[in-house]
C-alpha cells in the first residue's frame, strides 16, 4: 500500500485502507505451535509448509461455509515455535484443529517429507506466550 498520494491512490483511499488494516490487525488472535521446523521447508514439489498452513480451511462442523482459517503463520525467534494468526471469529476453530496438529500433519503430508517438518518431539499447541519479534 502506498503512503504517497497519486492519481490512482487518493488521500481518502489510502486512509480508508489504513483503517481497514488497523481493524484487521486488532482483530487477530494468535496460536503458538511447538515442535515444527522452518515454515519454508518443502512438503511437496514447489510447495512449502507455510503454503500448507495458509491453505487450511475452517472445519465443516461449524455449519457455515468454509473459509480460510489462518490470516498468516510466522516463524518465531524460537526455531521450532510458530505463531499462527487468525481472525477472532475463527480462533476456536483454529485451536480445535491445532489440538490434533500432529495427526493432521501426518495425514496431509507425504512421509517422504516428514524430516522437513517434524522435530524429535511431537507438534503441539503451546499455551505459553513466547517472544516472537525477531527484529
Amino acid at each position, binding site marked *: 500500500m502506498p*503512503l504517497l498520494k497519486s492519481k490512482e491512490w487518493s488521500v481518502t483511499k*489510502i486512509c480508508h485502507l489504513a483503517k*481497514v*488494516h488497523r481493524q484487521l*490487525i486488532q482483530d487477530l488472535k494468535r496460536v503458538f505451535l511447538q515442535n515444527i521446523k522452518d515454515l519454508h521447508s518443502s512438503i511437496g514439489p514447489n510447495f512449502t509448509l507455510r503454503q500448507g498452513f495458509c491453505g487450511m480451511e475452517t472445519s465443516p462442523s461449524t455449519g457455515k461455509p468454509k473459509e480460510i482459517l489462518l490470516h498468516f503463520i510466522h*516463524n518465531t525467534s524460537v526455531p521450532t515455535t510458530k505463531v499462527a494468526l487468525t481472525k477472532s471469529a475463527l480462533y476456536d476453530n483454529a485451536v480445535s484443529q491445532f489440538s490434533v496438529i500432529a495427526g493432521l500433519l501426518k495425514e496431509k503430508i507425504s512421509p517422504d517429507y516428514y524430516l522437513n517438518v517434524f522435530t524429535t518431539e511431537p507438534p503441539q499447541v503451546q499455551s505459553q506466550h513466547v517472544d516472537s*519479534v525477531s527484529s
Partner: protein
Amino acid sequence: MIQFQCSSTWSELKSPSSSFFRWLKLNKVYLFYTKFKNSTLVPCGFLHGAHPGYLHLDEAEDEIRKYLNITNELEFQLSLRTISVPIMEGNPEKFAFPAVVVKT
C-alpha cells in the same frame, strides 16, 4: 549526521544496559538503522494486513524480493513503526496506525 558500520547487532547497540547506549543517550545522539548506504530513508508504503508484532522483517524482505523478482539494485528495508496519514485532502487531522513500513 554520520554513518558507520559495525559488526555488533542492532539489539546489542540499543541495549539499555550497554555503556555505549548509555553514552549515546547521555549525549543525545540518536541512531537509526539502514541496510544500505543512505543518509535518509523515505517511507513509501506499508504492508497491508501484515502484523507488525509478528512479521519477521528479514524473512519478509527476502520473500518480497523473491516473489516480486526485485534485484538488489532496488534497495529497500522494512521497519516497524506507527505511521500517520491525512484523513482528508487539506485536513490537518491524521489517522495513526502501527504498520510494517517499506522504506527506501
